[in-house]
């Protein structure tokens, strides 16, 4: 039996959407597009408006201003019931008084599908998430990960135009998290679903997304492909939020097309110029791009202040002429003791910060 879900995936478009709760502006005039069949994550610190944005897509909140389009339809004024959008909640929100199959069939039953047909379709959904045969159980008789997959199946079987996830993995332990997020990504890609996904875990966002939308204080700080955000952060907020970064002042010495020669405290490196002119600049240096050497040679002189052993790598805090640097070093077999003098050089994971 072939399973075909997701034939109706549609794009989501926000045009200057604002949502205010009385005085509080939770989302402030944001615009973005999520292409049909792609997965976009909303990423940002707590309280920045991610959940509100997601609920605006679902119709659980109605926008104070602006336009929301799903596919070509303007859905700005439509409440949740009338939108073709399903959502997977952080708490899963499985109905505790219904069995697994009843939960998954719920959307069909309330729209008037005969029960037998509804259950047959629900059965397919369960199969898709690998829970065939779990139908008669109650949600309380499942493990956390299984409950999560029931919630996904319940949202999926309706073949919504858009599928929403609000921090779906935050109730799972670290191991399970990795597995389930891969499963979600697999299903999304194989069915070609449009998914909007909220998380505040940047690693999760980078791992699963076609597009990441970073939010800050009710606004969009930057959006783009995971690699773009990591390698070309728009400002220090994004640089710092996506992976760790050392923000260091530097000087652009010369620009040659797309590349620039930059002097960081006298050490010269070559990085993408991002259209910046010669002169002072801020750089975001990834911790794995600060290279420590005890053998001397070219570079900045520094001193190790703190060390921490994290199993697969070492973390150091190093004092240097350009300020304190946070360093990740994979050479765990030869750790440096605090007080050790080192020579600092820089790798290529350095971005010039535009904003």
């Amino acid at each position, binding site marked *: 039996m072939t399973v075909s879900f997701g034939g109706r995936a549609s794009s989501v478009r926000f045009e200057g959407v604002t949502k205010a709760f009385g005085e509080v502006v939770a989302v402030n005039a944001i615009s973005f597009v999520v292409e049909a069949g792609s997965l976009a994550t909303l990423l940002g610190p707590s309280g920045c408006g991610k959940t509100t944005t997601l609920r605006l897509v679902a119709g659980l909140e109605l926008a104070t201003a602006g336009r929301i389009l799903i596919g070509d339809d303007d859905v700005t004024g439509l409440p949740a019931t009338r939108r073709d959008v399903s959502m997977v*909640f952080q708490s899963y929100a499985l109905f505790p008084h219904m069995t697994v199959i009843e939960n998954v069939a719920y959307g069909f039953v*309330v729209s008037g599908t005969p029960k037998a047909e509804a259950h047959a379709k629900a059965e397919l959904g369960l199969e898709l998430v690998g829970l065939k045969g779990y139908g008669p159980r109650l949600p309380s008789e499942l493990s956390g990960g299984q409950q999560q997959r029931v919630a996904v199946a319940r949202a999926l079987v309706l073949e919504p135009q858009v599928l929403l996830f609000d921090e779906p993995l935050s109730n799972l332990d670290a191991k399970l998290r990795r597995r389930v997020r891969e499963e979600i990504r697999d299903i999304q890609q194989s069915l070609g679903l449009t998914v909007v996904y909220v998380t505040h875990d940047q690693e999760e966002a980078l791992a699963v997304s076609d597009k990441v939308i970073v939010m800050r204080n009710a606004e969009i700080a930057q959006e783009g492909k995971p690699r773009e955000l990591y390698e070309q952060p728009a400002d220090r907020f994004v640089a710092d939020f996506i992976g760790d970064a050392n923000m260091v002042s530097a000087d652009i010495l010369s620009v040659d097309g797309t590349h620039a020669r930059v002097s960081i405290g006298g050490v010269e490196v070559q990085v993408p110029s991002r259209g910046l002119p010669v002169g002072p600049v801020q750089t975001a240096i990834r911790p794995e791009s600060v290279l420590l050497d005890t053998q001397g040679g070219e570079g900045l002189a520094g001193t190790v202040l703190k060390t921490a052993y994290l199993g697969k790598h070492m973390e150091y805090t190093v004092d240097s002429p350009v300020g304190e640097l946070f360093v990740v070093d994979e050479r765990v077999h030869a750790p440096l003791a605090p007080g050790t003098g080192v020579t600092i050089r820089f790798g290529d994971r350095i971005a010039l910060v535009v904003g």
Partner: protein
Amino acid sequence: MNGLGIGRYVLGWQLVGLAGFLLLPWYAVEDGFWGFGWLFDGYPFDPDYAPAIVLLLQGAKPWLWPIAGFLLLPALALGRPSTERFTQNVLLLVGGLGVAYILGQGFTVGLRGWNAGFLEAWYGPLGDRQFGMGYGALLAGTGLFFLFTLGCAARGAVNGDGFVVGSIGLIVMVVALFIFFPVARILISALQTNEGLFSLAALLDKLLTGKIWGLDCVYSHRACGVAWNSLALAVAVGAGTTLLGLAFALVVTRTGFPAKRLFRGLTVLPIITPPFVIGLALILLFGQSGAITQFLEAAFGIPASRWLYGFSGVWLAQMLAFTPIAFLVLIGVVEGVSPSVEEAAQTLRADAWTTLRTVSLPLMRPGLANAFLLGFIESMADFGNPMVLGGNFNVLSTEIFFAIVGAQYDQGRASVLALVLLFFTLLAFYAQRRWLGRKSYTSVTGKGDAGIAVPLPGRFATLIFGVTIPWAVMTAVLYATILFGGFVNLWGLDHTLTLRHYIDAFGITVGDHGWVWSGGAWNSFFTTIAISAISAPLTAAIGLLTAYLLVRQRFLGKQAFEFGTMLSFAIPGTVIGVSYVLAFNVPPLELTGTGIILVISFVFRNMPVGVRAGIASMSQLDSSLDEASLTLGASSWQTIRRVVLPLMRPAILAALVYSFVRAMTAISAVIFLVSAEYDMATAYILGRVENNDYGLSIAYSSVLIVIMFVAILLLQLLVGERRLGRRSAAKLEIGGQPA
């Protein structure tokens, strides 16, 4: 998905309205709401039973014509999309104006033609008249009203959710009609002279008399004004019940006292006992021929006195009756004070007494205020005990009763007294809200909050036991008296055992034509059961619906909505009773003397209880469950039916039984509304008490108490014990994620 427009709902409500206009008797039929004799008695041409259309065709009641127009016009909106401005306006205008017109004509044309003199002067005598509205008018009005709410929804109110807008409208409408309108009628009536003219002087004249505000008792032996009597009594009862309730709560939660369960058991008693039964039992014990009085006289030569009849007796009776209510409120609050907070205080070197004084008691502040308010209002509204024990000590509730029912029949005076009563309770309600601000809820977290409550400091514990144990014993003796008293021939004089009173009340004889319910109590007994059984589901439904709107929906004016629905909690039953007599005695809403008015009074008296129960249990349901259902395409009505209601089953059951029991025991509003045909048990018993027929009264009361006790036990069995204990708190929480 669910993209249906509102077209079929418009058609549906239009048909309902037309059915009312074309098919059913427009005016109230004589033999009551449930009497269907009219169907075979001249319908549809007899003017008493005719539908509006027949009346009009017969040439009568020409002012009903426009209603036909209002009912037909919505057809203009049929088949048009609800997003169109035109559709919205048609619905809003036709519905709104239609309802306003129906009400307006009802109030302007009454039993004697024009209701207001100036209309008569302008248009000349009408030469026609009309009675109270009946099924027809009800349906037509309902249809038009919901067309109006559909219009609001189409305009985008509450996200365009027709069901929610309709529900809000419904509740606003019925609360306005059955709480605000009657109370407003009191105000109007207070402003009227006995001749029906409006005058502020009349009000002031009635308001500012020594009988209400006199302070003679301060400096002489004469009685004070009733307002001061009521106020003093209510404050004393509020304070007393709060302190005593707190003492009981502390014993149950903070000591190892072995009979805790018994104490908890005592809390059911006031719910299942009509309050004045306590007064009655006190007479049997401490009255002039009471058992204890006689014993004291015989053993110690202490002469019998009349101390029981007056302030002290009423106070004692109300204390006994309402302390358990305070206890119920406070036990939750005392349990809500987290032991870990107290442990924290102790690790900061506070001793047990200091901890209690500086941490625990302040945290209980909302509970204390709540308990005081409840005691205060219950005392103000209590009618039975002052009636039975008051003697020369008059309070507002009894004065109101005599003004309405007594020989004086002075509506204006009753209204003024009711306003004073209302003023006091609203003042207390307002003061409590001000004092607490909005943070009135103690939160018992779902987290397994470990820790052991601090035991009570020694001397304090002794004091508390010294008060609570004798009190509990006394309560037990009272109830024993009630149960036993019904089997005694003539209490105080002849203590031979007899079934006489039970036979008088509940006798069944076999006559020529089979069984005869010959006992005097049967009539009121069956009425009570029936009225209570009808009002319970209505109360639960309207209470839970209101709770749903308050907890789960956001809409304009929600604060006012909440205040309005909670306000009826602060309106004493006595006031409701008077106001219903004033408001529903004449057309357009002619309800006095029917069973409906009793049902309605119970529904709105007990509604706040349903609302509170609903709010409590709904707040424990994670709102993402509703939202999940909505995003899966269910409408809000489907969500309520399939998700919310099934998960709230225990709360529903509790609300049902509670409103049933409250209806069985109520007296203060009921006493104004009973009629020969619809007599209620409590009113009947009180009547017997006035005739000094204590035996029958006590017997009847025992039967009621036992029945309700059984009802509550059944509930407990059905729902299982739902104690809000620290340990079980987590279990109560039904989150989206099963534990």
